[in-house]
């Protein structure tokens, strides 16, 4: 057998790499080194990373190799490197959430999911770029510059987790952690031709995730295959006593479901309200083909209606800003992060410094949402805005409940369009918000969702995504559908979609 080349290592799936590590075909140090080299070669063009921790990753890799050589009982993913979205607290590694306010902040503690990742021996390659405090759908709202879509560097990679999605799509990491408040895992996955899963709310600990909207946020896997997502999901999922909203039950059998990859007899509900007007024809075409493939595999396709989904976007853009305005209040220059003194005011008070710091530290989108949230919660407006949005939330949960009596999973295109050009929607917030129209209902109801590639849109040759949603705590269904469709599409394409991604500048130079 010929030894694995660095390119072989970085293009194989995480599960294949895990197998190669167990078989001794490659060491974790070699694999981690290959990914660090790849990052060095292409991240100048992609800008998926805000911070790369080469030394830390290589040290973990060496330790895993040593333990493996000593015959230790290791986690199946031990030695497989991964990237972490910069919204997740990592002890000893800068954590900025894409904001100037946290430039250089090094948390004195690990998020629960990071503690689990470290305990399992996955080298942490670095922290990935994102919209500031996860507010955005394009990663253009990062204080550290946008991430570029590996399929077309002039286009957005989706957001807020564009860094994690682009890192995986550009073969800079086999696995990444994302967070999804309204689609920030699934929409970038769709836009970059990768796989992303938002688990059931409470399925993965939020302890250590810099909160955007506490009742919507959920961390999950960002990968290149459905099985890889399941493996990472299983690692980070499960009860955490540090998160009151964590579900006190074992993670659904997601890895088994991904292996099973069978939809025979499954009822698949197409949500009438997600997929009509405003959806790009190429996105629709790939979605319809995917449905046909699933039908061919024995699934029964039914149409369901969720009449209140048309209010989801409005409810979301009240609940999120409200919770965010409160969650982001702590960035006040007193205990950590940026402190800006107002100009010409040496005698400034704490309040003056808070005003000046937050003015200088938050970007436009953060300011928009904080002020919107402050408004929605203020006395006299609470009932009409925040209160009504909470009621819509109930109606959307009821829609799901009703729909799930007719279908085992619900499906739709993940995002209405493929990647748009950088800067195109930057100053049109409402147009930007529409990117999340199909992903938001799941967050409002707390149900799990997956996005996987459905193909390239004919009109622009860019990836489109297929979304499946399941009832709360039935995340395994996503993996059954996802793994089935993934296999059918790979057969049709003759390989993974990412094989068709363009060669990146850095590679040419390298």
């Amino acid at each position, binding site marked *: 057998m010929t030894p694995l080349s660095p390119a072989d290592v970085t293009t194989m799936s995480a599960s294949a790499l895990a197998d190669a590590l167990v078989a001794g075909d490659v060491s974790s140090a070699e694999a981690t080194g290959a990914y660090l080299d790849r990052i060095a070669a292409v991240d100048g063009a992609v800008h998926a990373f805000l911070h790369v921790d080469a030394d830390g990753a290589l040290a973990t890799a060496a330790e895993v190799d040593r333990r493996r050589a000593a015959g230790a009982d290791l986690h199946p993913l031990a030695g497989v490197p991964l990237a972490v979205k910069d919204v997740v607290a990592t002890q000893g590694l800068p954590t900025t959430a894409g904001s100037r306010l946290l430039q250089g902040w090094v948390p004195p503690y690990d998020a629960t999911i990071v503690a689990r990742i470290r305990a399992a021996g996955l080298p942490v390659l670095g922290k990935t770029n994102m919209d500031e405090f996860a507010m955005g759908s394009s990663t253009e709202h990062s204080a550290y510059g946008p991430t570029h879509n590996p399929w077309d560097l002039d286009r957005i990679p989706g957001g807020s987790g564009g860094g994690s999605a682009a890192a995986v799509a550009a073969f800079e990491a086999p696995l990444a952690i994302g967070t999804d408040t309204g689609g920030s895992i699934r929409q970038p996955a769709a836009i970059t031709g990768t796989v992303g899963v938002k688990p059931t709310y409470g399925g993965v600990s939020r302890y250590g995730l810099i909160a955007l909207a506490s*009742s919507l946020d959920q961390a999950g896997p960002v990968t290149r295959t459905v099985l890889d997502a399941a493996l990472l999901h299983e690692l980070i999922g499960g009860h955490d006593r540090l998160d009151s909203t964590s579900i006190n039950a074992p993670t659904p059998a997601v890895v088994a479901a991904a292996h099973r990859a069978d939809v025979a007899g499954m009822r698949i509900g197409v949500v009438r309200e997600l997929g009509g007007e405003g959806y790009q024809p190429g996105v629709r075409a790939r979605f319809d083909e995917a449905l046909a493939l699933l039908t061919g595999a024995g699934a029964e396709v039914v149409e369901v209606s969720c009449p209140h989904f048309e209010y989801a976007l409005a409810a979301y853009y009240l609940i999120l800003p409200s919770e965010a305005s409160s969650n982001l209040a702590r960035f006040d220059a007193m205990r950590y992060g940026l402190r800006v003194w107002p100009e010409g005011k040496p005698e400034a008070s704490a309040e003056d410094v808070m005003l000046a710091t937050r003015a200088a530290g938050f970007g436009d989108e953060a300011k928009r949402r904080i*002020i919107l949230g402050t408004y929605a919660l203020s006395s006299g407006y609470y009932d009409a805005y925040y209160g009504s*949005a*909470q009621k*819509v939330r109930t109606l959307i949960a009821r829609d799901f409940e009703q729909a799930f009596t007719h279908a085992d999973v619900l499906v739709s295109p993940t995002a209405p369009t493929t990647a748009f050009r950088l800067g195109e929607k930057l100053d049109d*917030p*409402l147009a930007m918000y529409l990117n999340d129209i199909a992903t938001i209902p799941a967050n409002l109801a707390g149900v799990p969702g997956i996005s996987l590639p459905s193909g390239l849109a004919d009109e622009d040759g860019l990836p489109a995504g297929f979304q499946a949603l399941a009832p709360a705590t039935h995340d395994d269904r996503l993996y059954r559908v996802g793994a089935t469709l993934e296999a059918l599409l790979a057969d049709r394409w003759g390989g993974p979609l990412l094989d068709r991604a363009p060669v990146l500048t850095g590679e040419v130079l390298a």
Partner: protein
Amino acid sequence: MAHLARLARIDLSDAELDHLAPQLAVIVESVAKVSEVADDDVPPTSHPLPVTNVFRDDIVVPGLTAEEALSGAPDVDRRRFSVPRILGEEQ
């Protein structure tokens, strides 16, 4: 808008106010549609899952050392967070 910015402790310049105010107006108009279906008989949902009674035991768990706690502080004095003078009354 200026009042809201002050409540949110963000010192917005006049230029920013001019830039953001119309955008916010459009957003507010768009999200106001939630009230169309928010009838009195619909209960509000604050938590996506119906979980109640999650408690921890009353035991001391080691936290951070003072050094760790103060490690990210913009200014430290006498093992405390040093902050600009506070106007107004003690709470």
